[in-house]
Each structure stands twice: as structure tokens, then as C-alpha cells.
């Protein structure tokens, strides 16, 4: 079946991304205007804009299933692309689309549900014989069970939320006496964040690397992987920088892990794009963590080293086409690095720094790809996210890519908010990072400061401060003969003032 019009249930850079590929494929796009950002860049690029600015509902439109279905029907869209975040991994939303005869550009509701619930996912993986961290069979019912399971697994362990991730509902427990307390805290946090207090327990792997594999599957049962991404540079479980491929994987390990990734995807009859996450320990043992049933923020690095447009593949798969690639066709060429440039203050612990982008100049060299949803004049709105742009560079190998990354970062010119640029500028000069010697604990353990100010930069800033001081205090601006003339007044007024008393 042919898709003619896609409703984009998202905004920002991913909406721009989807529109770009849809246009390439001559498919129309529908975007939703919300009151919070009525002049967002993606709106001007879509073919149809549905104006939702009068919506007084408490739920933001991109989380409002009923509303989105209504918009799809009203705009005669025959498909919906959920992007990432929002409702992308909401099985109920996917089902509702199908029920309303709207194609959901993503996997089946069943796959979303199964992989979305972490304990269900673990059970499936276990049944398929996938290597994973030892853990509880299912959800933990109470503190006692938590303690006894942890004893069996052996400390340190990690408590995780069954219904979500991103660090919430997650607690590392190293000592048995902390277990009860942490279990309760993690449960409560999970309930608050995901409306589900269920948690399970796994062995905690110290300082692992986070390696994930990109999966593509079609509705005919063909599933392949497109190589890995190295995502260990994270802060509080939020990724900051990703690479493809990973310097930690030998060709053999890549083949093995890739095969396992495909196996997991097969266990739920997966189709569309998805990502299987692994942890890799210092002995190169890998453990399945979870599967993300959506397109991910960092997909561009895979697109660059494989030459495949993943959004296009998603749309084709959704149209029922068979994958035209076989595993042997997938070759990783060169290296790609992506830096997430967010409106965050690195000096204040990456606290969001919302504001208006006054000036924005991004490099346009051939070895740079920019994925962004903002332009000069755009506002970074705290109710959405703080992303300004994804800076993606390519090189013929890692060294080359790092060199290009350094050059590109120095060319980025953003005025109006503080950004994560100082962090990346420091990172690409950090010896351990350059050597590839880093794990997910890198930012917390191996970095003293999250930014580096070069000595000359501080001195130039000091020079400017001194200049301002001199201008304010030592420059004689106030009176000279010319100014005396300016304060003359009319004879009318002078006469009145003199004779007033």
C-alpha cells in the first residue's frame, strides 16, 4: 500500500528530519502547531499545518492520543510517524492508529509492549538464550524478596523500573543494609515517573561501555542489523556524544553481538527500525539490557557509516515493502561522531538554559551534517527539550573524525543561550577519550571538570572586564563645554524658576 500523507506526531529536529525524507519520497507531511512554539521551524517546512494553538487541554498535544488520532483523521493522513520520545513507544497509541486504519510507522503494538516492559523483555531474552546480566525472574513484590534475590545475584546490584528508563526508578545498591531503603525509593520514583511501581533487580556491571545495535526488520520476517553505536559518553543516563562504529568491537565481536541483536528482535517478530542495547564489560563480555522500539536520536551516525536512510526504510517497511538489503550487504565505512548541542549550562551541572537563539551559525563543510529544529530567532522552550542541534561529523577513521569534530566545534557560533559546546570542546582534546579509553562512568569518574577554559580565553575576558570598568569610571563623559549648551532652557522657564519664591 502506498502512503501519501504522514502526520508527524512530534516536533523539533526529528520533525524536520522526517519531513526531509518524506519530501524526498514525494510524500506529504502534516505538522501540528502548538501554542507553546507557534513559530517553530518545522512548521514552515511541512505541507499541511494543523493549528492546535487554541487547545486548552492540560495534556500536551504530542502526548494526547485522542487528539492526535482526531488530527490524523481530520487532515486525511494515512500514516503517523511518532518520532522518538512522546508516544513513540506507547503500544496503546500504536494500536489506536491501527484501529483507525492509520498506518503506524514503527513496530507492532505487540512488539512495543513486549520490549517496553523490561521484565517481559528479560523473560523473552532469557527464553531465547540471550546472554544477559543475572537478575530477578520478574518484578520484585516487596523488600524481603528484593533482599533475597540480591543475595543470590551477588552485590553490587541495580534496581530498575519495569516500565521506563532514563535513570528514573533506578538505584545502584552496593551494600546489603541499603537494599530495603533503596527498593522503596526506587519503587516510589518509578510510580511517580511511569505510573507503575514495578521494579526488578539485575547484577550491576561496573563501568561498562554502552553499545547498541541498529535493527531493521520488514513485515516479511527479514531482520538485519546495521552495526553498532558507541554511546558510553552519558551523564546521568542522558547521552551526550555517540559514535559509529565502536572502537571496542573487533569484527568478530561485532558479528556475534549483531547476530544476538537480530535474535532478540526475531523473538518478538520485530519490524521497522529498533535498537538493541548491550553493556560491554572490561573483559568484552556483553549483556543484553533492553530494546528500544523506535528510531533513536543518534540514528544519524549509523546512516553515515552505512549510507542508508533509516527514516526512508521505516516508511517503506510501513508500506509493506520487503527489505532490499541482506546482512551481507551491510558494510560499515568510515567513522561518524555526533555531539548533542543542547541549551544547557555546563558550569551549572548542565542545568537547562532556556532562552532565545539570537545568532546561529553552523559549519557547512562536506564532512559535517547538521540535524536541527531551530534557527536564529527560535526560542528554546523548557516544556519541550533543550536541544539546539546535533552536530555530526564524518571521517575516514576515528582519528580523522575526531580531527574534523574539533574543527567543526570551533566553527559553531551560537548566541542567546549557554550551550554544551565547552564540554565537547574539552572532550575531543581529552587524552583518554582520544584513546578510546572510556566507559559510562567517564564523565563522573574520569573528568575533573566538565569544561576547559583555555588560558587566553580567560585573559581576554578579563581584558574586556577591565575595559568596561575603565569606560564606566575613568572616561570623562559627563561634562564638557558642549554638554553645558545642551542643558540650556527656554527664557519662559528660567524666568518662572527664578521668580518662583
Amino acid at each position, binding site marked *: 500500500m502506498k502512503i501519501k500523507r504522514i502526520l508527524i506526531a512530534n516536533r523539533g529536529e526529528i520533525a524536520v528530519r522526517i519531513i526531509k525524507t518524506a519530501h524526498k519520497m514525494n510524500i506529504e507531511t502534516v505538522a501540528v502547531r502548538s501554542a507553546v512554539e507557534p513559530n517553530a521551524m518545522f512548521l514552515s517546512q511541512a505541507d499541511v499545518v494543523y493549528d492546535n494553538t487554541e487547545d486548552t487541554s492540560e495534556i500536551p498535544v504530542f502526548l494526547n492520543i485522542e487528539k492526535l488520532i482526531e488530527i490524523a483523521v481530520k487532515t486525511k493522513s494515512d500514516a503517523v510517524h511518532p518520532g522518538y520520545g512522546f508516544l513513540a513507544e506507547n503500544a496503546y497509541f500504536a494500536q489506536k492508529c491501527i484501529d483507525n486504519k492509520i498506518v503506524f510507522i514503527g513496530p507492532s503494538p505487540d512488539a512495543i509492549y513486549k520490549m517496553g516492559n523490561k521484565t517481559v523483555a528479560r523473560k523473552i531474552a532469557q527464553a531465547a538464550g540471550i546472554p544477559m546480566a543475572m537478575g530477578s525472574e520478574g518484578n520484585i513484590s516487596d523488600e524481603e524478596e528484593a533482599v533475597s534475590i540480591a543475595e543470590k545475584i551477588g552485590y553490587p546490584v541495580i534496581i530498575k523500573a519495569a516500565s521506563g528508563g532514563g535513570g528514573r526508578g533506578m538505584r545502584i545498591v552496593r551494600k546489603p543494609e541499603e537494599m530495603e531503603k533503596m527498593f522503596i525509593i526506587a519503587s516510589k520514583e518509578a510510580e511517580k515517573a511511569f505510573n507503575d511501581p514495578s521494579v526488578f533487580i539485575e547484577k550491576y556491571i561496573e563501568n561498562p561501555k554502552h553499545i547498541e545495535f541498529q535493527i531493521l526488520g520488514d513485515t516479511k520476517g527479514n531482520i538485519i542489523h546495521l552495526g553498532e553505536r558507541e554511546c558510553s559518553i552519558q551523564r546521568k543516563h542522558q547521552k551526550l556524544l555517540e559514535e559509529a562504529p565502536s572502537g571496542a568491537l573487533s569484527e568478530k565481536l561485532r558479528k556475534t553481538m549483531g547476530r544476538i541483536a537480530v535474535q532478540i528482535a526475531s523473538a518478538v517478530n520485530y519490524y521497522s527500525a529498533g535498537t538493541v542495547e548491550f553493556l560491554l564489560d572490561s573483559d568484552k563480555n556483553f549483556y543484553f539490557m533492553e530494546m528500544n522500539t523506535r528510531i533513536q536520536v543518534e540514528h544519524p551516525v549509523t546512516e553515515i557509516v552505512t549510507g542508508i536512510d533509516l527514516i526512508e526504510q521505516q516508511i517503506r517497511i510501513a508500506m509493506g515493502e520487503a527489505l532490499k538489503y541482506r546482512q551481507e550487504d551491510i558494510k560499515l565505512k568510515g567513522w561518524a561522531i555526533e555531539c548533542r548541542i543542547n541549551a544547557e549550562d555546563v558550569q551549572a551541572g548542565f542545568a537547562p538554559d532556556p532562552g532565545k537563539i539570537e545568532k546561529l551559525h553552523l559549519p557547512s563543510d562536506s564532512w559535517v551534517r547538521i540535524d536541527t529544529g531551530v534557527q536564529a530567532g527560535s526560542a528554546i522552550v523548557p516544556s519541550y527539550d533543550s536541544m539546539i542541534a546535533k552536530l555530526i561529523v564524518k571521517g575516514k577513521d576515528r582519528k580523522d573524525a575526531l580531527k574534523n569534530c574539533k574543527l567543526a566545534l570551533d566553527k559553531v557560533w551560537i548566541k542567546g543561550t549557554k550551550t554544551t559546546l565547552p564540554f565537547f570542546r574539552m572532550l575531543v582534546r581529552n587524552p583518554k577519550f582520544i584513546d578510546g579509553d572510556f566507559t559510562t562512568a567517564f564523565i563522573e569518574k574520569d573528568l575533573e571538570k566538565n569544561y576547559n577554559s583555555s588560558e587566553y580565553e580567560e585573559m581576554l575576558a578579563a581584558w574586556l572586564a577591565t575595559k568596561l570598568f575603565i569606560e564606566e*569610571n575613568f572616561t570623562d563623559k559627563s*561634562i564638557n563645554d558642549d*554638554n553645558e549648551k*545642551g*542643558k540650556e532652557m527656554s527664557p519662559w*522657564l528660567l524666568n518662572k*524658576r527664578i521668580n*518662583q519664591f
Partner: protein
Amino acid sequence: MDLSGKHYKAFIERQEALKKQYNPKQAEKQHSKGKLTAQERISLLFDPGTFEELDAFVTPADQPVEFGKVERTYGDGVIVGHGKVNGRLVFGFAQDFTVMGGSLGYVHAKKIAKIQEMALKMGTPIIGMMDSGGARIQEGVASLSGYAAIFHNIIHSSGIIPQLCIIMGPAAGGAVYSPALTDFVFMVNHSSYMFVTGPNVVKEVLNEDVTSEELGGAEVHARKSGVAHMIYDDEENTILALKKFLAYLPSNNVENPPVVPDDGTTPDINEKLRDIVPDDPNKAYDVKDIIQLIIDKNSFFETAELYAPNLVTGFARLKGKTIGIVANQPKVLAGVLDIDSSTKGARFIRFCDAFNIPILTLEDVPGFLPGTDQEHAGIIRHGAKLLFAYSEATVPRITVIIRKAYGGAFIVMNSKSLGGDFSFAWPTAEIAVMGPDGAVAILYKKELAESKNPAEMKKELVKKYRDKIANPFIADELGYIDEVIDPAVTRKKIISAFSALSNKWVKVPARKHGNMPL
């Protein structure tokens, strides 16, 4: 003709003796405490080469005047004279703590009184730099009457010439009234103190242990008592700031202040002004952000910043000409008026009125601060001061209503009925007898009590109130404000309004003075 003849011997001897008195060892006494000497302070204040000292060689009254080579202290602990500050004639004095502790004796006081009288005759500002141990005990009642003469002169000149003072050391007992009577007081942090009764006496009488800093340091006076208007961390910055400040003021109550040309970088129309007030009426913003966008670049000099921060006062320039600004600050105490802010505002307005400085009022005030603390302490009296000051002022007065303007506070903040010349309002203005929540609660009390969903109903009624009653267009149509303006053109509007008012003249009533509540 050389200076070596016998006529000149005494002259030269005296000059040498004076130089010896002001030697580096003396200076070190001040420097070791992080303070400057009186001469250094004078040098910093006045333009180089312009200071003419008067009465440098007077000797204190109780010292026998002898001939011979006995050391005499010249000057009696204060340097007085005139000079140019940024090219403008100013009289000034600096007390010298190294000479007899800067204590005020009969002759010391006479010197100060002399330049006070001259300043009044010449119509020039007078600046005092105080650093004194207090009255000279040895001289008894003569030093007390010396103080009285100084106070009398200040009062005599009040409102005729600007009188500024910087406290750069101790000022205790009677000495504090001289700064208290002047127009603006600057203090230096950590090295200046003002109190009527010092810590020693406090300890004796009340058995309370308190340091000079805690009792009357710069922070205390800037934040709590409101006696000090501007404080700085060191002496140089204080003096530099005072020089900057002086440029906003006229030399006397007949002349206009100096004009400092605008560099032309402030746009007359600025769309950023539309973004400052949040959509949510309960969210605060910083009124200083608005101020910065409508005045000449970097020309805002805030006074009494730390005292009653819920009302912002200060001087600024519009196209080079000085104006005074009074603005409610929504992000502190919701911008309400209370006792402290009423007196702060009233004093500032009266200064501007005395010296012909036009006043711009930026209004966003939900009312007066409720509560027994305020009521029992006399908010009625103090609030009336602000009302009186505005109404009495004959300088050009313009109001821009930014957001809330409710009830009594609306009247007080320079409404047209009080003689305000022009009143503008932004579309975000809400002008009403009282805020929507209060009004709805009173007018719809019965309906809300009977409603099944009072919260929902209240929300709707509040919205209706804002649309139908509190919106500025009604006040506009009835003539209580002159125009509802686009925030972006605020600067353009007020410049042209002040320009239209530049020749404003209103005759003051024939009376000695009004009976303002105090």
C-alpha cells in the same frame, strides 16, 4: 626676584611644616586599615589640578599659637575647598582621621560652615567625605555648637543645592545627623559606621553585645535602616560612583542637569519589550529589564537598591537628559507598597521635585502589603507620604502602567487625578478597584457558594473580570489614561511626552509648606 629673602622665609617654613604633617607615615596609618587619606580622597574626587584648598593653615582653638619650631597641627583635621568634578564647580570637604582623629572642633566646624555658605552663594553642589572620631571632647560645648552650625547650614541649603556625603570611617553620636540631613548618603563597606549610640554605651546600658559593623555598618544602613543609599566595597569605587552620580544632578534648583549625549545605540522601538511580561499574571519579571530597554544605554543609576527592593528608584537619561524613575518591582513581595517603600519613594520624588528632575513611574502594583505589622506601624501614614509627594510635585510626571494597578495603590502611583501629566498603559495592564480574585469573591459570593464546581467557576469569572472590567481599554475610553500603547514603542512615547512637558510650569500654593504626614 627669588623666594629666599626674609619675607618669604616664614612662608616657606610654613609650607614645609604642612608637608611634614602630611607625611607617608601618617598615610600609612590609614592605608594599614585599608582606608585612603583625606588628600587621596580629595585627589580622587576632584579633577587633577583643580582643587583649591581654603584655610589649610588654621590651627585648632585650644592650641596656643606659638612662633618657633614647635610642631603645630594645621587644618584642624579637615580639608575644605573647591574644585571641578568632571569639569563642574563643586565645594567639598574631607575629614582627616590622622589629625586628631578627625574630631570636630570649633575651627574644624567653622571651616565646613564656610564652604557650605559659599556653596549656597555660588549655587553649586557640596560634597562631604566624613571620617571622624566625633565631637572633640576637649572643646566641650564649642564643638557641639560647631555641629549645630553645620546642620543648620545643610537645612538652609536643602532643596537649593544638592548635598551629598560619603561616610568613610566612623560617624557617631551627633555627627550622624549631618549625613542624615543630606540628599544622598554613600557608605564604604566594612570600614564605615554610623550610629547615634555606639556599641560601648549599648553594652553598658542594655548589656547587649554588638559590633560596630552589626550596629551601624554599611550593610545595615543600606538594607535595614535606609539611611545609606549607595554602598560599595572600597573607597575608590565609592568616589568614582559619586562622580558618576553627580552628573545626573543639576548644580542648583534653578539650572537643568548636565546633558550626557546618548550614543544612539538604544533603539526607540524595541520588540523585546513585548516579551518581558509573562502571560501568567502570577509570574514575576524584573522591572529593571524594562528600564534598561527604554533608557539611554547603561544610564540607569539605582539609588537605595538594597532598601525596600519592592520599589525601584534611581536616575536615568532619555536622549541625554536626566529623569528620575520610580518603579514597582514585581519580583520582590509581588511589588506591593509597604511602609519602607512608601517612604523611600516619597523622599526620592521630593528630591526630584526640588531639583526640577522629571519623574517616570512604571506601575505594576497589586496593592499595599496587608497585615497587622504594617497596619500597626502606620502604613496609613506612610503610604500617605507617597501620595503627598506625588501630588505636590510640579515636575513633569509620566506614568506607564505595565500590569497591575489596583485600588488605592493605583491612585497613589502618580495617577492622572493626582496631577500626573500623561498616563500610558500597556495592553497587559489591569486597572481596577481590586484584583480579580478579591472582586469575584465579593461580587459572586452567593453563586460560588452554591456552585458544584467553585474552582472552575471562579477561574471562568476571573477570566471574565480580566476581559470586561480590568482591561486598560476601558480606562482609556473614559479618559483616565491617555493611551494604551504597544510596549515596543514605550521609549519613543515617553521621550516625546517629556519633550512636550519640558516647559511645564505650575505655580506652587502660597504657603510656608504643607503639613505632610511624617
